[in-house]
């Protein structure tokens, strides 16, 4: 009893001290720093896109850039490559994660760690590696020429959108696999065994038991990969193809190579709008998944 009163007595002044300092004040320094180096520059970027170099109406730069064939090509390229890469990552990531989680083999755990390391490396290394595998003097073409005696090999797709697509699928698949593996670890093995003992084939178990459980993580992973593909720069730059221009590459070309800042800002605003909208969707998906998983965990803990 004595200890209880002591605790109450000691706790009371501490609480008033906390209340004496406005709580919002602590949040001010980091937010101010972020505003200075991120929000304010972003605001200036948008303002610059509305101040054409040659004067005229505010949206002059927009109507000029949006009408350019190079911009339209870049927009179509970006969206098509991002959509294709996301689809590829989802299919490949789902298949690979399924094997790692449900048909485990010795070393499957080490593989999970390998995936984490993979995520720490920059994306352009993949394009560099593909140059040695499928490039004009790479493994694949070397094998072909030494086997058939031909002058050059058949693999010449690295400088086309297909090369970018392959590199992006390779690099971003682990981003789909990681949340999927986390979701798969929540699936009760009892459910799978019950389904199997009732005569369900593996294909049916995947479709009716595992897929519904994994769908939120699959959607969240896919949305994240879609955003990252839209913003990918290193892979496309290292491909070095003149006819594969995406929005980020167009921003770079306009600003650094042509010195046209206003045009670059216009393209950047379009790119930002596209990816922020998608990212908001991704966050909403993750928030829904998080709530569901949290609820499931709590329910299990109560059992």
């Amino acid at each position, binding site marked *: 009893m004595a200890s209880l009163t002591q605790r109450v007595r000691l706790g009371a002044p501490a609480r008033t001290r906390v209340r004496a300092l406005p709580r919002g004040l602590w949040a001010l320094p980091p937010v101010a720093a972020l505003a200075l180096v*991120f929000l304010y520059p972003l605001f*200036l970027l948008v303002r610059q896109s509305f101040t054409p170099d040659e004067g005229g109406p505010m949206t002059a730069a927009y109507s000029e850039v949006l009408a350019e064939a190079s911009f339209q090509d870049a927009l179509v390229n970006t969206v098509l490559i991002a959509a294709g890469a996301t689809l590829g990552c989802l299919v490949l990531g789902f298949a690979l994660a399924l094997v790692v989680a449900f048909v485990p*083999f010795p070393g499957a755990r080490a593989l999970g760690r390998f995936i984490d390391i993979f995520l720490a490396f920059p994306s352009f290394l993949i394009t560099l590696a593909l140059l040695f595998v499928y490039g004009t003097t790479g493994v694949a073409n*070397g094998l072909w020429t030494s086997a058939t005696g031909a002058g050059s090999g058949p693999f010449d797709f690295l400088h086309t959108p297909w090369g970018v697509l392959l590199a992006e699928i*390779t690099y971003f698949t682990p981003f789909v696999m990681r949340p999927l593996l986390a979701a798969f670890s929540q699936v009760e093995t009892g459910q799978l065994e019950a389904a199997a003992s009732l005569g369900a084939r593996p294909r049916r178990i995947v479709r009716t038991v595992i897929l519904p459980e994994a769908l939120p993580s699959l959607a969240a992973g896919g949305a994240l990969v879609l955003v990252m593909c839209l913003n990918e720069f290193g892979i496309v730059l290292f491909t070095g193809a003149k006819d594969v221009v995406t929005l980020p590459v167009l921003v770079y070309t306009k600003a650094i190579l042509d010195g046209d800042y206003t045009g670059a800002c216009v393209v950047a605003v379009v790119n930002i709008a596209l990816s922020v909208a998608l990212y908001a969707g991704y966050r909403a998906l993750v928030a829904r998944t998080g709530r569901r998983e949290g609820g499931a965990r709590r329910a299990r803990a109560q059992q």
Partner: protein
Amino acid sequence: MLVHSNKARAVIWTGFLLLFVPLFALPFAVILAASFATTWSGALPSGPTLTHYQDIAKGDSLNALVTSLLTALAASLLALAAGTWAALAAQRLGGRGKKVIDTLFMLPVAVPSVAVGLSLLVAFSQPPLLLNGTRQIVIIAHTVLVTAFAHQSVSAALDRLDPAYEQSAAALGARPAYVLWRVKLPLLLPSLTAATGLCFALSMGELSATMMIYPPDWLPLPVQIFATTDRGALFSGAALAVALMAATLLVLFGVSRIRTRASYR
């Protein structure tokens, strides 16, 4: 547990390896192999040599490696400080305030890195802050890009932290500053070091924003790799890439050692 017959399992594993090895293991193997080679026109590289590594030790590439390490160190420490502070402040605010801060600090992930670089270029090429062409602008860009990851990881750890520890410390009369320094931060240490490692790795490999803003006297390693491969010296580029990966892995490994020691507390 899903497939019970041995034969079917073997088929699935073979398919898995046929997909996994060429797609994910091969890239690192070929870069490593190429860094020791002079030509590659068959199944395997030929002309074993160490000259690419010797070139790194004496040329501009060493400068680039040091530049990258310093930039990544500065950016990850700044990001850790800002991200942790914001996460702690957000948790204290709670409710809508937390949501606003979390969204603000996650925003740099959604904005393309190239656009972040361009915005810094636009903002800091004019008074009052003239930073264009300095090293600081590179460090600022990297910090902006990686702070989101530090914030996210620290704030996830804060959510998992059992409030009983700080409550009992406060109930025993510890001042808020003491609780933060002696109770909360030590408990958060594993995730703080993990966040630092992640930020360091991301900053080491950052290319998009850096390409927009790097000054000639502060050229990080990814830019050097691009310049090298762009002029056709693929094998030197591979050696540089190996140096980049090795430095990143070394730091990640060191950071994970801190984590294991801290988790014994």
